[in-house]
């Protein structure tokens, strides 16, 4: 078992399979709000859905409307279970808090990949890979 220390931004605990993006994500533009599919051409996750995943990506960008997109995804039951970022930014932080999605950033190391079984315990500031 591996425990990676991190910083809590949005509270909660979640467990699931990771979806890793080496490229930034803008919830307004990169993600289809109706399906949770990555619709930005040339994005490394193009065509994949973020719903139900532990979404891991370096940083965010784009419009503040992105907070509402993340909130909307959760209202449709299409939100990621948790989010891990290298460095959180205000748009995703606000969206995650609105939607009760655990969000952590600044993990001690950022060597993730897709398909890992991961537990995010934001309240304790820990990412656990059993």
């Amino acid at each position: 078992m591996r425990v990676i220390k991190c910083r809590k931004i949005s509270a909660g605990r979640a467990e699931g399979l990771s979806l890793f993006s080496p490229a930034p994500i803008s919830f307004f533009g990169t993600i289809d709000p109706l399906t949770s599919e990555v619709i930005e051409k040339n994005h490394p996750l193009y065509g994949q859905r973020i719903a139900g995943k532990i979404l891991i990506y370096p940083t965010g960008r784009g419009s503040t409307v992105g907070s509402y997109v993340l909130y909307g995804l959760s209202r449709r039951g299409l939100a990621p279970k948790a989010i891990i970022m290298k460095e959180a930014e205000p748009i995703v932080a606000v969206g995650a808090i609105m939607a009760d999605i655990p969000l952590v950033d600044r993990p001690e190391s950022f060597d993730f990949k897709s398909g890992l079984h991961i537990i995010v315990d934001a309240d304790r500031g820990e990412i656990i890979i059993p």
Partner: protein
Amino acid sequence: MYLTNKQEAILKGEEGWAKKKCLEIIVGLGEIYGADRLIPVASTQISGVSYKTLGEYGLQWVESLAPAKVVVPSTLNPAGMDLCCWLEMGVPEEFAEKQMRVIRAYERLGVITLCSCTPYLAGFAPRFGEHVAWSESSAVCFVNSFLGTRTNREGGPSALASAITGLTANYGLHLDENRKPTAIVKVSAKLFGLSDYSALGYLLGKAVQHDIPYLRGLPSLDVDEAKALSAAAAASGNLALFHAEGFTPESRVDISGVGERLHIDGRDVKEVYEELSTIRSGKIDLVAIGCPHASLAELKAAAALLNGKKVSPTSKLWFFTSLPVKVLAKRLGFIDIIEGAGGKVFTDCCMIVAPLERMGFTTIAVNSAKAALYAPTASKVDVVFTTFEKCVDIALEGRLV
């Protein structure tokens, strides 16, 4: 981050779900920016009002916060339509229904439904040194720079969270050390009219992405000039604070050791008109003045130019302003003159957040660099950026002159 016992109790939900979520937002942002504590705000100004930008889920979020109430005076950014005269604007009815749902949702929270990007011209001017949480980017830059108020550039949800909690996190432009000038910008351009100030702001915002500029050599800076400059600088480069030698309250600081970054001359300003215009000739569907919302002085100037004239039947001339300014302009006779010439003065909204693309417009003329920058993407129209006087001429002719 240090939190008081009362704040801890709010986070535990002791004052209800809405207040808990809103304080979580404020604390979350404070964590990201390394704030040491939370500070009270005197007012808020909330963006995310036009249904076009807020959308269904944004609306549901605002609705979900009731029955919580805002605890400080809070006003709104422009909506997607004149809340009274939307039929005259040609706004689709189903849009109007959604828009009124947004307004009612904010009303239930106790927000003052003044929908304006210039609340400081409509009875809501913060004072020097006061901490506030405002989100309209042009107003943020204006109050920080021209009034010496302290606000970060909030997003809609965080400004609303500050309204409900009365708090913001102590970081960024709330702190002395982040407000000092870091780059001198020499202005040798002679500036004629508000569109020149807008063009200057556009250049300034683009050039100083991570600096607090100190402008030297501005010929003048009145309220309307500062409004135009702030709006364009905030739109082209996220600028939230500038200092102008001899004009702004925080410009009287030691600037020895601050280097000159940029020199803007008359030719640079002229070139912005070319750069931001996407068409050079032809018919113009709409001439739109009031980005940011037109002041009383601008409506007076419009009335003087339009007296006894007639807007072309193939074009429209629309002014956008705040409700209090329109009421005063009506009393002073400016509205009657503008309407007598075939123009319209709308309140609560603007050419960027109204659904222009669904109202049949394809070409617009503006005297605002911000509007010229945003309109092609926000409303899918071609745009001409020119002076106030030429805008009026275009409306009279119905085409570029």
